[in-house]
C-alpha cells in the first residue's frame, strides 16, 4: 500500500507545467464569474434551505467554469497591447510610430479634425462606441458614425452648447444649451419634420414644446389625414417667442425608413434643468442627470418625462460630474474640494468626501466601481478606494479632465497634453503608460475612451481628435449588451427590451449586489472557557509588559513601580472577573428558582417566580 501511495504521489507531481499554468489562468478567470465568495451556509439552521443553497452554489461554480472556458477559448478578439524592447519606454512612443505600425483599418482611427471656429468641443460616445456626438461651445452639434467615418448629421444652434450626451441609442441625444431662441432653426426643423411626415410611416413619438401653449404631439400621431391641422399648430408655435434655457433633446433619423439622409430634429426642451453644465445619462434607469450653474442636480426620466429628483447641492456652481457605472450613483466635484455622491431618491448626498484642498476639477469612476480618481486645482490627482473611502495613491500632477477606459487605463487631459496611466502592478498604483501632446495652445476640454476600441478621443479648443491607445478597450463585445455592428432592426428590438428591463430610481444604491442576498447571520457567540482563559492571560501579560514612564521626585522608586504594576494587573483582570461573577450569579439565581419551584406544591409554584424576583 505504501509503495502504491508513493507512486501515486510521484504521478501527481509529474504534471506538465504548461497544464498547471493553464489551470491557474482558468481559476483566475473563473473568479471573475463567481461574482464574490460563496455564501456561508454553516450558520443556517434550516437544513432544507441549506441543501438547496448548497446545490445552487454548486451550479454557480459550474456555470462560472463554463464561462471561464468560453472566455479562454472562444473569444474572437484579443486585447491590444504595446510592448517595448530594450531601452524603449512605452511613454516615449509617439502616435506617428504607432499609426505606422498598425493595420490600415486601425490607422484610420487616429485623426485630428481642426475646427477652429466653434470650439472648444465636448463629446460623447454611444455605449457601443459606434457613434460620437460632438458639441462645439459656440453651437456646433454633430453626430459622427465612427465605423465608416461618416457624418450622420451636423447643424448649428447658434448659441452656447455646454455638454452633449447620448440617450439610450444613437437616435437620441441631449444637448445642454444656453437658450433656445433660434427661430429659423426651429421653423426649419419643423418644416423638415413635416416634409418627412407627409405620406410616410412615423414612429409614435410625442413631440411637445414646453414653452409654447400648444402640444402638437396628438395631431402628429394622426399624420396623413390632418396634415393641415399640424401646420396650423406649428404656425402658431412659430409666432410665439422662444427663450428657454435648458436641455434640448434631439432626435436623429426620426422616420424609420428614412435612411438616405438622416435628419436631426429638435425634439423636446426641458427647461426645468436650468442652465445645465454637465449631462449624464443613466442607461439602465433611463434617467438624464444634469447639474446646472446653481449647483442643482436634476434627474429626469426620459421615457415618461417626469422629473424624478431636483436637489440643491448647496455647494455652489458645479461642472464636474461622473456616474459610477457599478451602481449608477452620480458623483459631483465641487469648488470647495468636496466630492458628493447622489441618488435620485435621496435629497442629501449619500457620501461627502473632502478630496482636495482646492476646487475639484475632474472626477472619474473605475469601470469596476471600486475606485475613483479625482483631480484638484492644487495639482494633485488622487485615487480613492470607494469601499473604505480612503485615498490609495496621490500624484502631483494637474488635470483638467479624467476618464477611465473599459480596461482600467486612466487618461489625464491637462492643457494641450494628454497622458494615459496604467495600473501595471495590480495595487492601483498608476504609472505613465502613454502620452500625447497636441499643438501648443490647444486646450483639451474632454477626454473620452471609445468603448470596445483602442481609441482615445480628445475634444479641444481647436476641434477634436482621436489617438490610438493599445489595450484600452474591451476586445470582445456582446451583441445583446452593446453591438457596434447593430442593424436598425436589432436596435429597435433592443430598445424594447431595455425599456422592459428599465430600473426604477429606487434601485440606485451604493451596493446594488444586496438585492436578493442573504442577511448576514448575527449570533452572539459565547467564547469557550479556554478562549476566555487565553484572553485573560494575554491581558495580564500585556499589563505586565506595559512600558513604565520614568518620573522624577521619587515617584519611580522600585517599590512604587511594583505597586503600579500590580494595580495595572488587577485592573486588567477586572472585566474578566466581573463577567465571570455575573454569570455565576445568574446561574445561582436560576438554580435557586428551580429548587424553590420543586419544593413548593404544584398549585403554588407559579408564585415562586415572582417572589424570587
Amino acid at each position, binding site marked *: 500500500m505504501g509503495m502504491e501511495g508513493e507512486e501515486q504521489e510521484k504521478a501527481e507531481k509529474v504534471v506538465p507545467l504548461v497544464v498547471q499554468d493553464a489551470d491557474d489562468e482558468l481559476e483566475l478567470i473563473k473568479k*471573475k*464569474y463567481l461574482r464574490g465568495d460563496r455564501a456561508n451556509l454553516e450558520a443556517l439552521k434550516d437544513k432544507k434551505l441549506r441543501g438547496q443553497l448548497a446545490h445552487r452554489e454548486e451550479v454557480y461554480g459550474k456555470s462560472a467554469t463554463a464561462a471561464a472556458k*468560453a*472566455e479562454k477559448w472562444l*473569444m*474572437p*478578439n*484579443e*486585447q*491590444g*497591447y*504595446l*510592448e*517595448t*524592447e530594450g531601452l524603449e519606454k512605452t511613454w516615449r*512612443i509617439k502616435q506617428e*510610430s*504607432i499609426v505606422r*505600425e*498598425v*493595420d490600415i*483599418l*486601425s490607422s484610420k*482611427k487616429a485623426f485630428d479634425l481642426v475646427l477652429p471656429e466653434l470650439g472648444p468641443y465636448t463629446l460623447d460616445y454611444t455605449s457601443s462606441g459606434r457613434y460620437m456626438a460632438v458639441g462645439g461651445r459656440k453651437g456646433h452639434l454633430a453626430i459622427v458614425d465612427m*465605423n465608416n467615418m461618416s457624418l450622420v448629421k451636423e447643424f448649428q444652434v447658434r448659441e452656447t452648447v455646454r455638454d452633449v450626451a447620448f440617450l439610450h441609442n444613437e437616435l437620441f441625444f441631449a444637448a445642454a444649451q444656453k437658450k433656445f431662441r433660434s427661430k429659423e432653426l426651429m421653423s426649419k426643423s419643423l418644416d423638415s419634420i413635416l416634409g418627412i411626415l407627409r405620406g410616410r410611416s412615423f414612429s409614435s413619438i410625442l413631440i411637445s414644446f414646453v414653452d409654447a401653449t400648444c402640444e402638437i404631439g396628438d395631431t402628429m400621431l394622426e399624420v396623413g389625414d390632418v396634415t393641415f391641422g399640424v401646420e396650423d399648430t406649428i404656425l402658431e408655435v412659430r409666432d410665439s417667442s422662444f427663450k428657454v434655457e435648458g436641455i434640448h433633446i434631439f432626435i436623429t433619423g426620426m422616420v424609420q425608413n428614412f435612411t438616405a439622409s438622416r435628419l436631426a430634429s429638435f425634439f423636446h426642451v426641458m427647461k426645468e434643468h436650468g442652465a445645465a453644465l454637465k449631462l449624464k445619462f443613466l442607461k*439602465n434607469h433611463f434617467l438624464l442627470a444634469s447639474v446646472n450653474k446653481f449647483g442643482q442636480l436634476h434627474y429626469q426620466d426620459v421615457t415618461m418625462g417626469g422629473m424624478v429628483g431636483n436637489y440643491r447641492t448647496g455647494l455652489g456652481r458645479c461642472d464636474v460630474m461622473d456616474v459610477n*457605472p*457599478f*451602481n*449608477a450613483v452620480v458623483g459631483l466635484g465641487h469648488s470647495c474640494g468636496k466630492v458628493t455622491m447622489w441618488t435620485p431618491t435621496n435629497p442629501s448626498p449619500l457620501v461627502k468626501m473632502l478630496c482636495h484642498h482646492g476646487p475639484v476639477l475632474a472626477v472619474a469612476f473605475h469601470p*469596476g*466601481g471600486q475606485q475613483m480618481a479625482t483631480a484638484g486645482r492644487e495639482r494633485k490627482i488622487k485615487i480613492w478606494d470607494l469601499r473604505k473611502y480612503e485615498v490609495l495613491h496621490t500624484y502631483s500632477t494637474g488635470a483638467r479632465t479624467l476618464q477611465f477606459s473599459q480596461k482600467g487605463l486612466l487618461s489625464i487631459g491637462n492643457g494641450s497634453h494628454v497622458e494615459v496611466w496604467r495600473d501595471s502592478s495590480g495595487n492601483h498604483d498608476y504609472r505613465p503608460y502613454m502620452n500625447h501632446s497636441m499643438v501648443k495652445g490647444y486646450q483639451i476640454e474632454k477626454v473620452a475612451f471609445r468603448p470596445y*476600441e*483602442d481609441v482615445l478621443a480628445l475634444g479641444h479648443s481647436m476641434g477634436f481628435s482621436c489617438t490610438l491607445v*493599445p489595450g484600452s*478597450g*474591451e*476586445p*470582445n*463585445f*456582446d*451583441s*445583446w*449588451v*452593446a453591438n*457596434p*455592428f447593430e*442593424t436598425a432592426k*436589432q436596435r429597435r428590438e433592443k430598445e424594447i427590451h431595455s425599456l*422592459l*428591463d428599465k*430600473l426604477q430610481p429606487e*434601485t440606485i444604491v451604493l451596493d*446594488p*449586489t444586496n*438585492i*436578493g442576498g442573504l442577511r448576514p447571520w448575527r449570533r452572539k457567540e459565547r467564547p469557550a472557557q479556554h478562549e476566555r482563559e487565553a484572553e485573560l492571560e494575554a491581558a495580564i501579560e500585556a499589563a505586565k509588559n506595559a512600558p513604565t514612564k520614568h518620573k522624577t521626585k521619587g515617584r519611580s522608586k522600585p517599590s512604587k513601580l511594583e505597586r503600579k504594576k500590580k494595580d495595572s494587573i488587577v485592573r486588567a483582570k477586572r472585566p474578566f472577573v466581573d463577567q465571570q461573577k455575573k454569570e455565576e450569579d445568574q446561574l445561582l439565581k436560576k438554580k435557586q428558582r428551580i429548587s424553590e419551584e420543586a419544593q413548593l406544591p*404544584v*398549585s403554588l*409554584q407559579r408564585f415562586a417566580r415572582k417572589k424570587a424576583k
Partner: protein
Amino acid sequence: MKVKVISRSVDEFTRERSNDLQRVFRNFDPNLRPQEKSIEYVRGLNAAKLEKIFARPFVGAMEGHIDAVSCMAKNPNHLKGIFSGSMDGASIKFQMGSRSDILTGMLSVRHENQEPMSLNEVTDNFIRPTKEKYIRLWDIATRRTVCQFPGHQGAVQGLTSSIDGRVLVSCGTDCTVRLWKIPGATDESNDNSFKPIVFVSKNGFRDVDHKWEDNHFATAGTQVDIWDHNRSEPIRSFEWGQDTVISVRFNPGEPNILAATTSDRSITLYDLRLSSPLRKLIMKTKSNAIAWNPMEPMNFTAANEDCNCYSYDTRKLDEAKCVHKDHVSAVMDIDYSPTGREFVTGSYDRTIRIFPYNGGHSREIYHTKRMQRVFCTQFTCDGTYVVSGSDDTNLRLWKAKASEQLGVLLPRERKKHEYEEALINRFKHLPEINRVVRHRHVPKSIFKASALRRTVNETERKKEERRRAHSAPGSMKPIPMRKKRIIQEVE
C-alpha cells in the same frame, strides 16, 4: 516595439448575405453588465406579472351527463380518454312512447332505493324508460363523448380500468359490477354494441379499483371484496367493523396491498396475501377518498371530511407526514399526478386545489361560477391537465399549470420560459414578487369561509395556550396538528 490594437473588419462581424442570420457574439463578463442583479430582479417581477396575466387554467367543459358526475377513471393505455360515471339513477327520465316530441318530462325520485321497475309496470303500455347512459368515455382532445355504456339501473359509484386498458369495471348502487370491453381508439361504434359482463351482489357498491397486475379488482361497499374478471363471485372478502367502506385503492408499488376508508372514520390497510386486514387508523372524521403516491408508494394521502388532506407513511401511521390545509369544506376526491410531486383535490366548497406532495398549503385553486360541488378529480396520465366532475353534471378540463403555454414550444420559447421560472424562483422571497406570485382570486364565499376558519383556529389556539399557561407545567403537552386528528392506530 510590438503593438496591436483592436481591429474589426466589417466582413467578419456582419452577415455575408442579407438572407443569412445575423451574427451574434457573446461576452459574459460581469463588468459589461452593471446592475445585473437589479435588472434580473425587474425581469423576475415582470415574469411574475406575466405569469399572472397568462394564468388561464380553464380549458373547457364537457357536458352530456344529466346528473352529477360521481366518479371518473383514466385509461392507462390511452392518453386522451377518460371515463365518467354519473348519479343518473336518482332521477329518472321518461319518454312518451307515441308522442315523444311533445310530452317529454322529468320525474325526480328522491330515494335511491325506490325501484324504477314498479313505475315502469304501471305505465307499461304508454311510457318506457329510456336507456340512460350513465357511463361515458370522453375524448379530452376534442372534449366530446366517444361512446357511452348503458346498463346500470342506479347511480354509478365507482369506475376503474384494467392495467392492460381493455376492460372497464364499473359498480353502483344497483348492486351490480359490470365489466365492459373498452373500444379501441379508432372504433366508431354505437351505444349498444357492448354487452357487459354483470356480477350481481346483495348490497350496493361505493367504489372500485383495479389491481396493478392480474385480473383482480376490489370493490368497496358493506365490505371490501376482491373479484376476478372470470368469476361471478368475489374471491375474497375483508371485513373489519360493520360500517360501509367508502373508497378503496391498490398500492401501485406492492400490488397486493390496498387501502380503504370506512364511514366509521377509519383508514384500513389490507394485504391480499394475509387472511385478515393489516392495520387500521381511526381518525376524528371520516376520509372520503384515498390516493397512493405513485413515486413513493409507501405514502398515501387521505381526503378528509374536516377540510384537510393527510399524508401518511404506511410504516408510521401514528403521525401524519404532512397536513394539507386550505379547503373550507369536506374534501371529496383526491388524485396524484403521475410524477408524484403534487396531487389534486376536489371539494364540497366548489373548488379544486393542487397541493405539493410535501407542502402544507395548496399551490393553486381553480373555480368557476358555474362549477358546483366537486365529487371527483383526476390528473391526466401525462400530468398536464386536471379533470374535475361536479354536481352541475359537467366534467371540466383544467391545465395543471395555470399559465403554461400549450402546444409545441420552439427552443427559444422554452428557454425563455425556463429563464423566467428560474428568476421567479430566485426572487420569490422578496415581498414585491411574493405578493404577485401568491395572489389568487377566490370567490367571496370561500374568502369569507377561510377567514372564518382562520379565526376559529386562532381562537382555539389561543384558548389552548391560555389553558396551558394556567395549568401545571407539563400537564398539557402541545399536540402537533399531524397527530391531533388521529384517535388511535389498531393493529
